[in-house]
């Protein structure tokens, strides 16, 4: 038979697959360990009087939620968006503008955040997902720039200077902005996003996205319309990122057009890549590394961006699977 392979060769061929499977398992275990460590972090840090670092970790977790949503697009769908930060801004501004009109009801704010981001993702996704490769990169960038310049132009919401948010979100009697609880709310959201991603990756939907990334023609040939599933993914990712913007608005009480600039979008890509594309832990690892470099290096030298840039080039050149890939031995 032409289709049988020598028995001796088979185990070797199976190992690449098995190595991958083990790497995925380690990734999942690492996710639980990381989440547990994050849960203990505020207690440990406050015991040492290091509340400042709790805030850094909190910021990292918010960024990680945004990065995880981008990782979903890049890692599963192969959709490299250079405009993902627009959703951070949409989340922040939807919250801030409502607060500006004295609406601090968290349920209304959250509905507005999710509704606005879903609508924006749907409309822009319908156009952007018709394009491929670098055109997709540029068109997502273009849409983000449109929102960016819109917010700069709207002086009544702060324009260039950004919008200060005077009221944090109230869910009934619960104030989302309270520092002691916000950390755990964000951690809970992050946990749901990370584990949700782990599950999606193994679902029908994940398989379809991966297949469409690998060979679009094959996916259509068996009878799926890749466009519809990508659009669904794009909307889910946009809403998730807007949720991070909502949390960030409650954390910093401030939102600026800068949060939507292409530089922020590039930073999100950086976090995804440094952490490890298509891994569960990648976004939080990448976000922690990103902020720790900023805080630690920023304390040492005002020129830390230089070393940061070099680090970035080195990562892309040498560690193509990101830090999580280095640790778990998986391949992209």
């Amino acid at each position, binding site marked *: 038979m032409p289709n049988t392979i020598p028995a001796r060769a088979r185990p070797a061929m199976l190992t690449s697959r098995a190595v991958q499977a083990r790497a995925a398992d380690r990734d999942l275990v690492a996710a639980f360990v990381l989440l547990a460590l994050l849960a203990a972090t505020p207690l440990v840090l406050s015991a040492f009087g290091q509340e400042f670092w709790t805030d850094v970790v909190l910021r990292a977790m918010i960024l990680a939620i945004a990065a995880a949503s981008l990782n979903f697009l890049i890692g599963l769908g192969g959709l490299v968006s250079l405009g993902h930060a627009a959703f951070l801004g949409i989340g922040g501004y939807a919250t801030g503008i409502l607060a500006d009109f004295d609406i601090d009801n968290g349920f209304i704010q959250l509905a507005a955040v999710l509704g606005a981001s879903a609508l924006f993702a749907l409309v822009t996704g319908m156009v952007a997902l018709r394009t491929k490769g670098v055109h997709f990169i540029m068109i997502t960038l273009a849409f983000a720039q449109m929102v960016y310049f819109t917010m700069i132009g709207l002086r009544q919401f702060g324009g260039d200077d950004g919008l200060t948010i005077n009221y944090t979100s109230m869910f009934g009697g619960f104030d989302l902005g309270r520092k002691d609880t916000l950390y755990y709310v964000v951690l809970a959201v992050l946990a749901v996003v990370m584990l949700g991603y782990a599950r999606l990756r193994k679902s029908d939907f994940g*398989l379809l996205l991966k*297949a469409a990334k690998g060979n679009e023609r094959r996916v259509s*040939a068996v009878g799926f319309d890749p466009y519809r599933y990508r659009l669904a993914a794009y909307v889910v990712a946009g809403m998730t990122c807007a949720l991070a913007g909502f949390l960030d608005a409650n954390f910093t009480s401030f939102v600026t057009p800068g949060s939507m600039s292409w530089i922020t979008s590039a930073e999100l890509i950086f976090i995804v890549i440094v952490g490890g594309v298509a891994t569960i832990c990648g976004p939080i690892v990448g976000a922690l590394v990103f902020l720790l470099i900023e805080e630690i290096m920023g304390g040492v030298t005002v020129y830390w961006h230089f070393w940061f840039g070099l680090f970035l080039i080195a990562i892309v050149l040498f560690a193509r699977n990101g830090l999580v890939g280095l640790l778990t031995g998986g391949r992209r």
Partner: protein
Amino acid sequence: MSLALEVRDLNKFFGGLHATRNVSMAVPKGELHAVIGPNGAGKTTLISQLFGELRPNSGQVLVDGRDVTHRPVHERAGLGMARSFQITTLVRDLSVGENVILALLARRGHAGRFWRRVDRNAELQDAAGLALARIGMDPSHLPRRVSDLSHGEQRLLELAIALVGEPSLILLDEPMAGLGSEESRAMTRLLAQLKGKTTVLLVEHDMEAVFELADRLTVLVRGEVVAVGTPDQIRNDERVREAYLGEDA
């Protein structure tokens, strides 16, 4: 007589090149119909139009009497059409099993159950194993990456995927391309098993296999149909000898 596939006056231009010229065909249900022709005759172009990857400039394609000329690829697949590709078109980064399961999900119209895990679904894994068994591949191949398969195995897998879900019309674009003689014979045996069960449109260069398998043949030269008939009729057709077989001899 009910037709599985009917093509009416199909035309396709690429700039100044007239790649498909007034092609009309009628393939009854259950027939294994071969399309042959010298290189550049427009066979793959024809298949791509039948499957919807290329839009014809004029003409109609009917499947089971239904006009599908303007339907996108994925809808045609949903109507029971399947195709294999001349150049193997599999998702190389995924496993054999995942490639098969993708087709299974599509045939069952199931996708978009966001949460169901496919890797631990025993029923899907079993169905994928059965799909492999049909082409004589052992289910132990399921976890292998497609990029680790040999060329012959990839061609077989391509066929296995086309067969998933019992399509009523299968378009096979040179299933034997690049196969050794032993592998070609195995492939011929597999295709022979399909005869009578489903309608097959076969484009193939291996003349031995084509004349052994086909119920009827269409000969395409420079985008044009020059002859239609049974293998015997084609063998003895003057125009075919002249336009096609003559060139080779």
